[in-house]
């Protein structure tokens, strides 16, 4: 789960990391009052879970109350890379002597945390990694040993603070302390990413975390009972998640339900290759019980109109017969009248087919293999889309 800048900074402050005085505001009026308290110069920053806020105009330095109100009004109305701006953070402005980059993330390659530092901060770090890979210092952290002192020294050396820079040797000491505290926070909070970009040296010689980007591991919430996972914005996702299903809303018109993450992803790909567009990713896992199938169907229909649904099940241990029984019950209970294409294969598939044939539901079509199932559901959605006069029939993809 990604945290907003101000949420990350609250963790920073609690861990002893240097942050600037700041107040969260949700209206221009509140922002102005915050600025009066923090001023005279403040920075008004969009709180949205995305990078590139500065480039998008979501961060503005203001010198007067009027400027703060205008900036807040503008920023609160923004959507940055598809993310609504929920609030602004009004922060005391500082004069920057130098911008640095410091982050810790999980490296899949070395299977451990990785500390990344650059003396060039305030830039897109992925872009910098491509343009000038030698500008990045990378140090894998042994999770059983923690961040070692020589690694901290490596960072301070790489920063190469000059004798004529503000702060003198104090800047190096400040940076070393930030490294140690950031590692401790990463570990203690079960983070998978902590990033300070930029980490700045002020003209006053202080090291300050000007931004925060923190991602915490949802699998570790059992260790952090204080962290409240936020409810998803999408109604379908909220419904599915309440039933314990993995669900990702997409923007097409074909509902997709299957068992297993890989199988569902693959089904969505094949729908796209046939020229259709999936409305969701819904993984029912074992999913034999009718409550699970019902929850999946209800979630699929809880959002924008769905032209048709594809249920793609490969029974490994799960018996297709049980899934079929669950589906028949669920289609009745959820009151589904849209076309449903069902593909069952593997364990007890024949028995599953028999259950569906016996139920004789008018809106259910049985497909005998996954490729046929995909072709069928795409054809149905196209017909329904054309009949309803929606844009579904001109969905991009072609013969893919």
């Amino acid at each position, binding site marked *: 789960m990604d945290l907003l800048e101000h949420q990350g900074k609250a963790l920073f402050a609690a861990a002893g990391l240097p942050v600037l005085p700041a107040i969260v505001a949700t209206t221009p009026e509140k922002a102005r009052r915050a600025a009066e308290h923090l001023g005279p110069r403040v920075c008004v920053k969009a709180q949205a879970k995305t990078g590139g806020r500065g480039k998008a105009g979501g961060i503005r330095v203001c010198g007067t109350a009027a400027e703060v109100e205008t900036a807040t009004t503008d920023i609160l109305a923004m959507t940055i890379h598809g993310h609504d701006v929920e609030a602004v953070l009004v922060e005391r402005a500082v004069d920057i002597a130098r911008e640095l980059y410091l982050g810790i993330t*999980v490296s*899949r*390659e070395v*299977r*451990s*945390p990785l500390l990344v530092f650059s003396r060039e901060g305030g830039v897109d770090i*992925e872009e910098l990694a491509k343009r000038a890979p030698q500008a990045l210092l990378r140090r894998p952290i*042994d*999770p*059983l040993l923690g961040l070692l002192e020589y690694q901290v020294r490596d960072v301070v050396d790489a920063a190469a603070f000059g004798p004529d820079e503000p702060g003198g040797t104090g800047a190096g000491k400040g940076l070393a302390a930030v490294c140690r505290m950031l590692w401790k926070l990463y*570990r203690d909070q*079960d983070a*998978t990413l902590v990033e300070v970009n930029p980490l700045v040296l002020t003209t006053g010689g202080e090291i300050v975390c000007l931004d925060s980007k923190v991602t915490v*591991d949802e*699998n*570790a919430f*059992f*260790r952090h009972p204080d962290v409240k996972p936020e409810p998803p914005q999408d109604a379908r996702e909220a419904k599915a998640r309440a039933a314990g299903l*993995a669900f*990702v809303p*997409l923007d097409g018109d074909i509902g997709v339900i*299957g*068992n*297993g*993450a*890989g*199988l*569902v*992803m*693959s089904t*969505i*790909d*094949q*729908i*796209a*290759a046939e020229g259709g567009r*999936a409305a969701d*990713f819904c*993984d029912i896992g074992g999913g034999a019980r009718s409550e699970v199938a019902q929850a999946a169907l209800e979630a699929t229909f809880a959002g924008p109109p769905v032209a048709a649904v594809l249920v793609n099940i*490969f*029974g*490994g*241990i799960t018996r297709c017969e049980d899934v079929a029984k669950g589906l028949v019950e669920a289609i009745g209970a959820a009151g589904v009248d849209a076309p449903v294409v069902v593909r069952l*294969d*593997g*364990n007890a598939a024949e028995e599953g087919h028999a259950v569906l044939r016996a139920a004789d539901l008018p809106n259910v079509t049985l497909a005998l*293999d*996954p*490729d046929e199932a995909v072709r069928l559901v795409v054809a149905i959605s196209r017909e329904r889309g054309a009949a309803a006069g929606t844009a579904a029939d001109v969905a991009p993809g072609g013969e893919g």
Partner: protein
Amino acid sequence: MAILIDNATRVLVQGVTGREGAFHTRRMLASGTNVVAGVTPGHGGKTVQDVPVFDSVHEAVAHIAADVSVLFVPAPRARDALFEAADAGIKLIVCITEGIPVRDMAEVMAHLPRRGAKLIGPNCPGLITPARCSAGIMPSEIFMPGAAGVVSRSGTLTYEVVHELTQAGIGQSTAVGMGGDAVHGIGFIECLELFEADRETEGVALIGEIGGDDEERAAAFIRERMTKPVVAYVAGHSAPPGRRMGHAGAIVEGSAGTAATKQAALEAAGIPVAGSPSELARLLGEAIKRRRAT
């Protein structure tokens, strides 16, 4: 021969008295696997399907030799159980458990090499050498002994492909489900290396998905080191960036880890990439046939 496990393999089950543990112990036994012991702290002295249960892995291996441990321990206690298995001298640990924190897995991966132990998983279906040994939860009914090696990040896609292979009369040497987490044990390269050295395996199906760069590194390895044919499939071409698609490791971060870049890397290494799981099974069948003809 096969890889990693065969009929001589002696399997221990951690979390054997739990619902999942007991259920799959029964299935492993039914498929002919030599399950020799189970462990659940506080349940020593019981039996599950006539398999003796011990309080600790150390105690179990003091009584009965075991080579492989299969874990069904709940996520909050999985880290400790993994350390315990490695410290008791188990050399191959298979972790079925889903939802283990990344921090715990990083710690486990730092410790296991010190004990010479290897890990498969977590969040995986385990592995199977058909008709000889099943260490995990794969449905043995759809498998058939033969020449195809399978290594995969996805359980159900493995079943799809194996089902197609079996229906086409192509049996499998060993199938390994390496799991869907970002930090995991044995990966594509280790399995490919073993399949290359294995006399029974004549070709390998690699099933990848979005996230990380396991497929890209596998592509480089295949180009440089594999003489046996490898065919591949990558799921997640239509996945939106930044969203976790069911598996913790299946997430496209920035421009990295997309299905398109993985497919391109595999194709650049001369590896045929299928458009669907059924096509993957077909491609592997053809590749094995071609190899036999030459």
